[in-house]
């Protein structure tokens, strides 16, 4: 068996090892290539920036713990951006496992940086099953869907919720998601209740979101860790997404390298087979 045949039948564990090394290398030797901004990320940043100070916004944590590396930096950067403008933030999650817990941890952590008080500057509504019903229900009354917040405190006892009763009292929905709930925020909440929706999604989901973006149904988009790194850059608070960019760069380059090697092997084998036939 010559080298080209071996290339075609290579044990996939060698590829796994190469991938492991390509991710490990940049975490030890930092390279820091400049992060360029995409128009869709700038659009999302500008949409939040243009809102009046102290506006009420909703930030969703529609993601499982599995996608934390891509989505949590988006939530953190968004919180920093919003609180720099002294906005009032309502968080919720349509994901039972992870979302509400992550929202609780992340918001309280970032709140300390800005001296924000729970109940006055932010409220975590937690999770309620059946996201379609939740999204429709919030349009008429938040309290009917969430009588209490995540910790069990009645909404009537939270000062922020005295003025926030439905979508009508909010200026923007910033949806960070790793699943299809974002489609419903767009097709139900944006389309039927006319409130602007911006979103940060995993890299795999981003191509689909471009159709909503082009149609004007989505106000700005962050795609995967790169999108999160862009937002971190615009907010001016570099975080884990920016650090992760080197590893992601190396991983992409490795895949391109593997594709090239695989194709060279494919063509050499094809030529050999053709020669043997002749």
């Amino acid at each position, binding site marked *: 068996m010559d080298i080209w045949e071996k290339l075609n039948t290579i044990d*996939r564990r060698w590829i796994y090892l190469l991938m492991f090394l390509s991710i490990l290398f940049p975490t030890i030797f930092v390279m820091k290539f400049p992060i360029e901004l995409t128009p869709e990320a700038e659009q999302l940043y500008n949409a939040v920036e243009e809102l009046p100070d102290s506006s009420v916004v909703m930030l969703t944590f529609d993601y499982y713990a*599995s*996608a934390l590396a891509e989505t949590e930096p988006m939530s953190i950067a968004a919180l920093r951006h919003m609180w720099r403008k002294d906005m009032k933030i309502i968080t919720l999650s349509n994901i039972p496992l992870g979302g509400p817990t992550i929202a609780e941890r992340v918001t309280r952590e970032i709140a300390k940086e800005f001296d924000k008080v729970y109940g006055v500057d932010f409220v975590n509504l937690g999770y309620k099953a059946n996201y379609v019903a939740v999204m429709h229900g919030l349009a008429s009354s938040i309290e009917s869907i969430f009588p209490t917040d995540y910790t069990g405190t009645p909404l009537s006892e939270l000062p922020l919720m005295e003025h926030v009763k439905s979508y009508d009292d909010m200026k923007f929905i910033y949806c960070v998601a790793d699943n*299809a709930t974002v489609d419903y925020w767009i097709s139900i909440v944006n*389309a039927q209740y*006319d409130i602007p929706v911006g979103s940060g999604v*995993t890299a*795999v989901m981003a*191509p689909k979101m471009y159709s909503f973006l082009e149609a004007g149904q989505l106000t700005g988009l962050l795609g995967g860790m790169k999108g999160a790194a862009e937002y971190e850059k615009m907010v001016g608070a570099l975080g884990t997404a920016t650090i992760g960019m080197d590893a992601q760069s190396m991983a992409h380059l490795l895949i391109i390298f593997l594709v090239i090697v695989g194709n060279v092997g494919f063509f050499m084998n094809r030529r050999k087979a053709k020669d043997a036939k002749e």
Partner: protein
Amino acid sequence: MRKDIDIFSIVKKLQAIRTLPVILLTITMSLILNSQAFAQDFGDSVFILPRMTVLILLLVFSSAVLLYTKWAKAGKKLFIRKIAGVDAVEDAVGRATEMGKPVLFIPGIADVEDIETIAGIAILGRVARVTAQYETPLLVPVRYPMVLAASQEVVEGAYAEMGKADSYDKDTVRYVAGEQFAFTATVNGMMMRERPAANIYMGGFFAESLLLAETGNAAGAIQIAGTARPEQLPFFVAACDFTLMGEELYAASSYLSKEPLLLGGLKGQDFVKVLIIIAILIGTLLVTFDIGDWYTNLFDVP
């Protein structure tokens, strides 16, 4: 042989009991008339008028599907293009039978309210008929209890219909885990331990699509996938032997059944697609010449 029961035949039967529709109609009308809305202005306060465009489109769509179904019922020949992935299902089950290995079927990982899951379960019914016929072991891991109940019903029904009720094992369909990656890990383990000869993925899939398909590929199974989620299609295309894309998933159960009644629905759908393409082309032309505002407003539904 399938008994020809649908809502029309049921209504026909009900017409014999003349009082029942009258009672139903009376109750419905009295509820509507007793509502506050009728005491106020009828019209905009009751109907969401801007949504009427949807109603018109819905009526056109329904009429097309019903018309083609009627023609199919009347015996008109309808051409349906070949779907390679669906044709491969029977071959895959046959291969598993020859090898004496099980067939793994996953009806997606979405809940039962997702139409993709229903499509997956419908295909499961067809696959279960074939596995029952050849007495090939079938494994159906599911992520949601409602999907468990529905899938169990379907598989049990398929075995009974093939006269193999005794071969049906209650644990053919099993609830594995509610958490996405716990489900994936369990199914991957199942693939490596039990080495199914055919893996069929039909329904809504998310980030686990490639994890499942790559493991199945490593285990040497023939793989057929189908999903309506565009973001997961590249992964299935890369790792599976056949992939049903988007609407092919919904067409698969009708296609497998080869019943004219179900195939009629597919033709109706195609007819509406042609109408949509025409509507898009008209819209593109009008907007290009800057005279399309009225036209786009027609489709701006709140």
